[in-house]
C-alpha cells in the first residue's frame, strides 16, 4: 500500500435517519487520498445512503463530512461537492434518445465545460472506457456493460478527484466485470480516490487498498485487508505444501515448536491410519520471523521431506466479512 499523506474523505459522527429508521449511525470513516476503498455490507447496511451523503445528494441528519480537507455543508450549496466528486449510482439510467458522445457532452455542459474542452474530454473518456468505436451509437443500443462504462465515464467528465461508485459491476457478465476492474485499476493509477460499494467481495479484496465493513448502518471494521486480518487473526498462519512424507514433516514441525493446525482445505486429508496423504498442504500457526522459517524449512529438507511451498495465509475478504458480521449478530 502506498504511503498516503492526507485524507480524501473523512466523516465524523455521520448519521442519517429516515423516520424512525437509522440508515447510517455515527459513521467515522477515513479514506486516504489516492486509495481504492471498498465499502461492503449486506443489503440495508447503509452503503448507498453513505455514498449519497458523500456525493451531496442527501443531507446528513448529524455529523460532519470533510472532502479533500474541507468541510462540506449540504445546506450551503452543492457546488463545491460536485466539483470534487464523481458519482455513479447503483440504479442508473441513460437518455435513450442520445448518442454516446452526446450523453457525455451533455454532462460536460452541466459541469460548465467549454465546447473545446468538452470535445477533448468526450474523445478521451470514450477512449478510456473503450467505447471510442461506439461514439455515434445510440445509447440504448449499447450493451449493459457498455452502458455501465459510459455511466462511469460521465462521472469523470469534470475530472473529479474523488469517485463514488455504487455497485459499479452489478449485473455484469464475467468479461464485462474484468473490464470494469481493469478500468478501476487504471483510474486508481491515475491518482483518483475511489470508493466502491460492492457485493463481489473477492474482487474488492484484490483491488482495494482499504475496506469498511458496515451492517445496520454502523461501521463494524475499517482498514486495510491486512489490518483486518491481523486484528481478527492475531496468530500468523502459514500453508506448507510437501510433496513427500508429510507424516515425518508433522513430527519434525511439532518438535520445532510449530503448531500444525490442520491439513489445509486444498486437497489434503488425514488418511484412515491417521496420517496425512503423501502430497499435502499443512496449515501452520507460526510466529517466527524469516530466519526461524528458513531454519524450519532447512530442517525439513535435511530430513528428506520435499518442501514444495511455504506461504502466508491471508484470510480473504469473504471470510473476514462473514466472521465480522457473524460476530456482530451473535453479540
Amino acid at each position: 500500500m502506498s504511503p498516503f499523506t492526507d485524507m480524501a474523505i473523512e466523516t465524523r459522527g455521520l448519521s442519517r435517519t429516515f423516520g424512525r429508521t437509522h440508515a447510517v449511525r455515527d459513521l467515522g470513516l477515513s479514506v486516504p487520498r489516492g486509495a481504492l476503498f471498498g465499502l461492503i455490507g449486506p443489503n440495508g447496511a447503509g452503503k448507498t445512503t453513505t455514498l449519497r451523503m458523500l456525493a451531496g445528494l442527501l443531507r446528513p441528519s448529524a455529523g460532519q463530512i470533510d472532502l479533500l480537507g474541507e468541510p462540506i455543508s449540504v445546506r450551503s450549496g452543492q457546488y463545491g461537492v460536485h466539483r470534487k466528486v464523481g458519482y455513479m449510482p447503483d440504479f442508473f439510467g441513460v437518455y435513450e434518445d442520445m448518442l454516446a458522445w452526446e450523453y457525455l457532452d451533455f454532462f460536460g455542459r452541466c459541469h460548465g465545460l467549454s465546447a473545446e474542452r468538452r470535445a477533448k474530454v468526450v474523445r478521451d473518456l470514450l477512449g478510456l472506457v473503450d467505447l471510442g468505436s461506439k461514439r455515434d451509437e445510440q445509447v440504448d443500443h449499447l450493451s449493459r456493460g457498455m452502458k455501465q462504462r459510459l455511466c462511469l465515464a460521465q462521472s469523470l467528465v469534470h475530472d473529479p478527484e474523488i469517485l463514488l461508485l455504487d455497485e459499479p459491476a452489478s449485473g455484469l457478465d464475467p468479461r464485462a466485470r474484468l473490464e470494469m476492474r481493469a478500468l478501476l485499476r487504471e483510474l486508481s493509477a491515475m491518482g483518483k480516490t475511489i470508493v466502491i460499494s460492492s457485493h463481489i467481495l473477492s474482487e474488492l479484496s484484490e483491488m482495494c487498498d482499504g475496506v469498511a465493513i458496515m451492517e445496520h448502518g454502523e461501521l463494524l471494521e475499517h482498514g486495510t485487508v491486512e489490518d483486518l486480518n491481523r486484528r481478527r487473526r492475531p496468530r500468523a498462519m502459514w500453508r506448507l505444501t510437501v510433496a513427500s512424507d508429510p507424516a515425518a514433516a508433522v513430527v519434525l514441525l511439532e518438535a520445532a515448536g510449530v503448531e500444525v493446525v490442520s491439513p489445509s482445505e486444498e486437497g489434503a486429508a488425514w488418511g484412515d491410519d491417521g496420517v496425512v496423504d503423501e502430497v499435502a498442504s499443512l496449515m501452520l500457526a507460526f510466529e517466527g520471523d524469516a530466519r526461524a522459517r528458513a531454519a524450519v524449512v532447512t530442517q525439513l529438507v535435511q530430513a528428506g521431506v520435499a518442501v514444495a511451498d511455504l506461504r502466508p495465509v491471508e484470510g480473504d475478504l469473504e471470510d473476514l466479512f462473514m466472521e465480522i458480521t457473524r460476530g456482530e449478530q451473535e453479540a
Partner: protein
Amino acid sequence: MSLPRPGLNPVFVREMRSRFRGARAFGALTVFLLIMTIATAIAYYFTHLSYQYGYGWQNESLGQSIFITVVLTEGILLGLTAPALTFGLLSSERDRGTWELLLATPLSRWQIISGKVGAVLAYGLLMIAAVLPMLGITFVLGGVSPWSVLLSQLVILSSAALLAAIGLAASAVMSTTSRAAVTAYVAAAAVIVGPWLLLFLVEIGPIGSGDLVATLMQVSPLMLLIVGAGFSDMFGGGSDSLQWIGQQLLLQGILTGWLFLLAHSRVRRSALGRGGPAVVGLLVFGMIMWLLWRLTVMVEPW
C-alpha cells in the same frame, strides 16, 4: 474554483434535441393541424348551410364562425396536450434512473426546471404559431379584429401554461410518471370541469350557495376560453368582459407561478421520490384559492 461558463442551459439543449429528434414531434404537430383543419372545414360547411336555408350570408359571420371554431378547437387541443407535455418532465428522469446523475451536477434547481419548461414552451409556441395562418383567414373575411385574435391567443397561452404547470407540479411531487400522469389529468379535469359540475349541482339544488362556485368558475380555463373566443365587438364584448379576462389572466398567472415554485422547491427533495407532501401542497393550494376569492373583486363576465 472556476464558475460554469455562461451559455445555453444544458437541460434546455438536451430537451430540445430529444423533443425534436425523430418524427414524433412533427407527427403530433401534423395531427394537431389536421384536426384544426377538419374543425375549420366543418365550421365553414355549417355556416354555408345556414346561408342556403335563408339565414343570410355575410363574410363577417363566416369569419367569426371560423374564428370561434379555431380558437375553441385550439384551446381544447392545447389544454389536453399541455399536461401531457409536462407530467413526465421530472418523473421520467426518476423512472429512467437519470435523476441522481442530474442532481450530482452543479446545475441549480432553477436551471433544471427552466431548461425543461423552456423546451415545452418552445413546442407550445410552435403549435400556436402553426395555427396563426388559419386565424389569418378571418382577417380576409372580416368580423374579427386583430385585437381579438391577439387576446384569444393570450388566453390560450395562459390557460395552457396553467395546465402545463399542473403537470409539472405533479411530475415533481409524484414518484413515478404513471402516478404523475393520473394526478396531472385529475387535477386538470378538476380545474376545467369541476366548476361546471358544481354549477350544475347548484342549479339542481344540492349545493345552496353559488358564491364558491362563482369563484371557482373564475379560474376555469374553459370559461376563460369561451369568453376569450366570444370576445369581439359583434358578441357584445365590452370593457366588463375585458376587465374580467384581464383579471382571470392575472389569476391564472399567479396560480401558474405558484405551481412552478412548488415544482421548483420539490426538485432536490423529490430525489427521494415520495409523494406524501402532495397532500400538503393541495392544502396550501386550497388556502391560496380561498385567499384569492376573498381578495378578488368579483366581476361578472357578462
